[in-house]
């Protein structure tokens, strides 16, 4: 029982980061009809900024640890928004709805940005000090408070995004554009501006995931790439462009990874995910909640 609770806790913790990451990817796909292979670079940028700022803030400037994390978090989101705006303005807005073109552009960006990070940051992994020390015990399973907070913050952000997409006017235009871009434009929705907002929200979600992940794992310049393959599997399972699908898919993949990784081994778990995708494609090619044309 303790073991299962522990594994379930792991699932929620990995899953919450997967959900944030996949949500951004699926949102960008929904609005712009592009697959952003450079999505991991937003994640990485945020994680790198958090670790750099925290190490500087705590060791050199002597700022309290929680406050320097707060600064680092906000700074990371701002920088990623700027990066997102630049790559959208000079790149992605020229390849809207062009699957092959945007794929190539995002791969180019992936190489360019990852190369730049490596130059600026170096290849050595760095860990940041614990923001909130201590442990809690829940049904016999032990969990650091830090990881608990990570889950809570991720859940809040996810709920916030869900409300944004389903309850606000911006969300309505995002969904309208995702549904049918031309019909949305006929209703007077400024497509290009909505696409920009969708892209920036997606980038910010990846940045949140990166900034949160930096607190529990050593940061390297390729940290975001590991998430990319799994995020792709998640959005295929959930259905491209579906917010709820990304949430369910993220938790499902985390469940397989956590339990499969314990009872078998991590690579068996990854293979199991792939088999799941294959089976799903045979049964329901548009994903659990997707409604793409076949």
């Amino acid at each position, binding site marked *: 029982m303790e073991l299962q609770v522990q594994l379930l806790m792991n699932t929620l913790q990995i899953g919450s980061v997967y959900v944030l990451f996949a949500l951004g990817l699926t949102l960008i796909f929904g609005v712009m009809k592009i697959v952003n292979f450079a999505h991991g670079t937003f994640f990485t940028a945020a994680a790198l900024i958090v670790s750099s700022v925290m190490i500087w803030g705590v060791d050199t400037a002597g700022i309290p640890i929680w406050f320097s994390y707060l600064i680092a978090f906000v700074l990371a989101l701002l920088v990623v928004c700027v990066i997102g705006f630049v790559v959208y303005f000079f790149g992605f807005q020229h390849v809207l709805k062009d699957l092959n073109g945007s794929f190539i552009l995002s791969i180019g*960006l992936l190489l360019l940005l990852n*190369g730049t990070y490596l130059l600026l940051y170096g290849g050595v992994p760095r860990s940041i000090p614990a923001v909130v020390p201590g442990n809690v015990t829940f049904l016999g399973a032990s969990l650091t408070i830090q990881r608990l907070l990570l889950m809570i913050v991720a859940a809040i952000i996810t709920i916030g995004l869900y409300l944004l997409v389903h309850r606000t006017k911006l969300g309505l235009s995002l969904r309208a554009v995702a549904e049918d871009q031309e019909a949305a434009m006929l209703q007077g929705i400024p497509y290009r501006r909505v696409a920009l907002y969708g892209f920036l929200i997606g980038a910010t979600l990846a940045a949140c995931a990166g900034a949160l992940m930096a607190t529990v794992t050593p940061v390297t310049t390729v940290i975001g790439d590991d998430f990319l393959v799994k995020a792709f599997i998640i959005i295929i399972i959930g259905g491209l462009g579906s917010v709820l699908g990304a949430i369910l898919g993220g938790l499902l993949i985390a469940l397989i990874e956590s339990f499969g990784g314990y009872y078998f081994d991590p690579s068996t778990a990854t293979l199991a995910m792939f088999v799941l995708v294959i089976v799903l494609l*045979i049964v329901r090619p548009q994903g659990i909640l997707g409604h793409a044309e076949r």
Partner: protein
Amino acid sequence: MLKDNLGLTLCILIALASIGFALFSGDPYYVQVVIWVFTNAVLAVTLRFVLLIGELNIATAAFFGIGAYTTAVASTIMDWTFFASLLAAPVIAGIISALFGWITLRTKGPYFLLISFAFTEIVRLFYTKTEALGGNSGMIGMFPPMALNDYFPAIAVTILAAILFGLYAAERSNLGRVFKAIQNNEDIPRSVGLNVIGLKILCFVIASATVGLAGGVHAYTNSVIAPADFTYFVAVLALAYVKIGGEGHIAGPIIGATILTLAGQFLHSFGPYENIFYGAIIIGALLLVPGGIVGLGARFKTGKFMGRAER
């Protein structure tokens, strides 16, 4: 027509010259570079072959690897003869791609792109976890037989050049036209009674089997293969060759592969700047020269040099 034949004649001459160079040049390094250029050209051309039906196939990299591993297993573990082990590569790659295509080609566009990406990474994971295939360090010891050793580079170039001409012929045939028709609007070929899914699978299998053969040649050329040689990045570079050369004509990917492979020989000394340079070249080519080098030539000929070309 005459002009086209002129181009084809030129290509045949270049291929013959390359074979001659591989046969008589004393410098193993330059011979190796020639084989790399041809291998990369095959990768780019097979990637473009699936683009004919409108799908971006990252699994090109996976089937290149499957071919290489098949040949390696046949040669080092099962002790098959040189040509038998080479022939096993396209057969196995073809069978696996038929199964994979049968399942996945029902999906289109982004779904196919992502699933082929995931397939590539998972096949690579499978190599690293399989002890019989050497795990992370891969397989060694694929050597052509002693009697053929001196002629091997020439044989490799001949096979690879034959693949390029074969795919050119396939594209020009009626089958190639049907593939393009599927890309334009698959409902029209379906409306005249063609089995569109079957044709898509056929296109995919042709491309995968040929790239598998190139993988087999790669195994013998390198004598060492490792899982890290077959990441999705292989397909990304192939795509860069296609984009820079231009996807409008089969010559595009070949030109792109030649230029970038030769440039890559200098870039290896750049260290961390290498990826930055590749990234910048890909972005620059996409945004500034959308039709690639071939597209530039075509625009120059039609006098529409200014303005954006169709992508």
